[in-house]
């Protein structure tokens, strides 16, 4: 009987340690949120969203150019990445048992594991070196390289869930295969595909490493795509490692804004997925 007690005691001990482990896992999340909200709120003001960073010895300033720059680069990288990702996913789901399809799927998984700083180096070689300038286009290419495998895999998962009967019904009505793929399969999976798109956009919205030597960042306004452009994550990084208190404040404010943007995209994605 003693051994039975011992066994239950041991089991209880393990269960308690699991609960403690779970709490330890969630602690950093709470700390990070509390800190970002506390430090970030104090630096938010209308000026924060409308003006560009000020020199370190002046107080105030904002990240308006970074917000706009991030937006521009997200749009361009989506224009590059989404068609490739989605049409590639159509191929994978239409030929799902093919050897080539599973090879591509494997490549996409491996590509998704490539560190983001490497995509930055490759975009540097492909875009910055030939055009002899750091540029928003180079940053967008680097982000698109990260986006493509994510969109491809999530869109494929969604397309695969469309029931075969829908496809068969469409083909039986004499609709050509390609129109079936686009108008029936892709259309009925659209909600899920949009979820995947939004998640991938949220993912690259926070990327910093691939922009370090492609978009480079900019202290001023710039609307030229072939020139260095500011981006919010880059600003957070540069302000954080600077020795100036005023810029540290901007970094915390930028972090709060970035987190809010990313979580709202994530929430939007979830609500699309539920429909």
């Amino acid at each position, binding site marked *: 009987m003693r051994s039975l007690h011992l*066994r*239950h005691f*041991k*089991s209880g001990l*393990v269960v308690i*340690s*699991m609960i403690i*482990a*779970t709490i*330890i*896992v*969630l602690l*950093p999340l709470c*700390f*990070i949120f509390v*800190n*970002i909200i506390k430090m970030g709120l104090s630096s938010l003001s209308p000026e924060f969203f409308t003006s560009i960073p000020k020199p370190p010895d002046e107080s105030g300033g904002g990240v308006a150019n970074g917000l706009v720059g991030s937006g521009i680069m997200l749009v361009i990288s989506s224009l590059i990445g989404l068609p*490739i990702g989605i*049409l*590639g996913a*159509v*191929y*994978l789901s*239409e030929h799902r048992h093919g050897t080539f*399809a599973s090879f*591509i799927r*494997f*490549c996409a998984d*491996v*590509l998704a*594991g*490539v*560190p983001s*700083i*490497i995509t930055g*180096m*490759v975009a*540097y070689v*492909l875009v910055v070196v030939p055009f002899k300038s750091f540029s928003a286009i180079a940053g967008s290419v680097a982000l698109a390289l990260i986006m493509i495998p994510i969109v491809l895999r999530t869109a494929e998962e969604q397309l695969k869930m469309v029931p075969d009967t829908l496809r068969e019904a469409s083909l039986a009505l004499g609709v*050509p*295969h*390609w*129109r079936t*793929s686009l108008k029936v399969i892709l259309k009925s999976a659209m909600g899920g595909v949009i979820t995947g798109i939004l998640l991938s956009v949220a993912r690259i*919205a*926070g990327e*910093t*490493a691939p922009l*370090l030597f492609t978009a480079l960042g900019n202290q001023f306004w710039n609307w030229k795509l072939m020139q260095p452009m500011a981006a919010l*994550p880059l600003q*957070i*990084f540069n302000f*954080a*490692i600077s020795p100036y208190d005023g810029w*540290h404040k901007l*970094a*915390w404010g930028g972090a709060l804004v*970035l987190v809010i943007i*990313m979580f709202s995209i*994530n929430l939007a994605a979830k609500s699309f997925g539920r429909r």
Partner: protein
Amino acid sequence: MPEKTFKRNDLLKGDYIFRLCTLLFASVILVILVVIVWQMTKESLPAIRKFRWDFLVSSDWNPVDGKFGALPYIYGSVVSSILAIIIATPLGVATALFITEISSRRIGRVISSLVELLAAIPSVIYGLWGIFVMAPWLQQTIQPWLSDHLGSIPFFAGAPYGVSMMAGALILSIMILPIIAAISWEVILAVPQSQREAAIALGATKWEMIRISVLPYAKSGILGAVILGLGRAIGETMAVTMVIGNNPQISLSLLAPAYTMPSVIANEFAEATSTLHYSALMEIGLLLLGITLLVNIFARLLIASISRKQKGGVH
């Protein structure tokens, strides 16, 4: 009649073109992968030719004299990633087990979505938090204590700087926890319920049930999760760059600043003026790429082989 055949051919042609188009777009993935490997190799050739194996074993990194040895960066990357794995694996697996085996479904759902949030936070924000909150905290509390009481052990020798190998490993472990927890959670969920019921029916306690019927079944999947976490940790750039101290030295002490492969690229690449410096950084990138490709291919094959086995329905 002729009109009809024309239409039919037309239809087939449309299918053919569409198929070709989608095939082309799917192949872009392969092209990207090949271009990445090829460009990185091409750009690092000057450094490879000049330094050969010295690059991997020398710790002399001096852009002014044109000397480049990557050992301190390799050491920093390997040690910080392994430490992160050691911290994150038990915590991640325990969380996954708690969600699946112990908590009620509702609490489990809340916890797993919180862990998902942890994965959604960008690297630079972890870095910001690390540099202003975690590193000062380490410097004021944990590190002085370690240095005072365990300073005779080489791992904890030296002055508390805050930014250190310890800070880098801690921030990495927080960042890879969600990956390890999420994948372990999926594999554990895939363990057939009958396995658990069999153990319970034999009178097993909760822990014995987990040990006898859950863990052996999920073992290789969890290993895959850990390896994927390792791949993520080695390539992680921003957060580590901000807290590890960026000092290219090889020190046993966890309190000493260190440097990693992605960090040196992040800090020096934009300012590398000489061809050799640029090429040396490219070679570090190539090494990093090689390591992450190997790690990812291995982990994917492992996870794929498990799902194939489970589809076969052996048990």
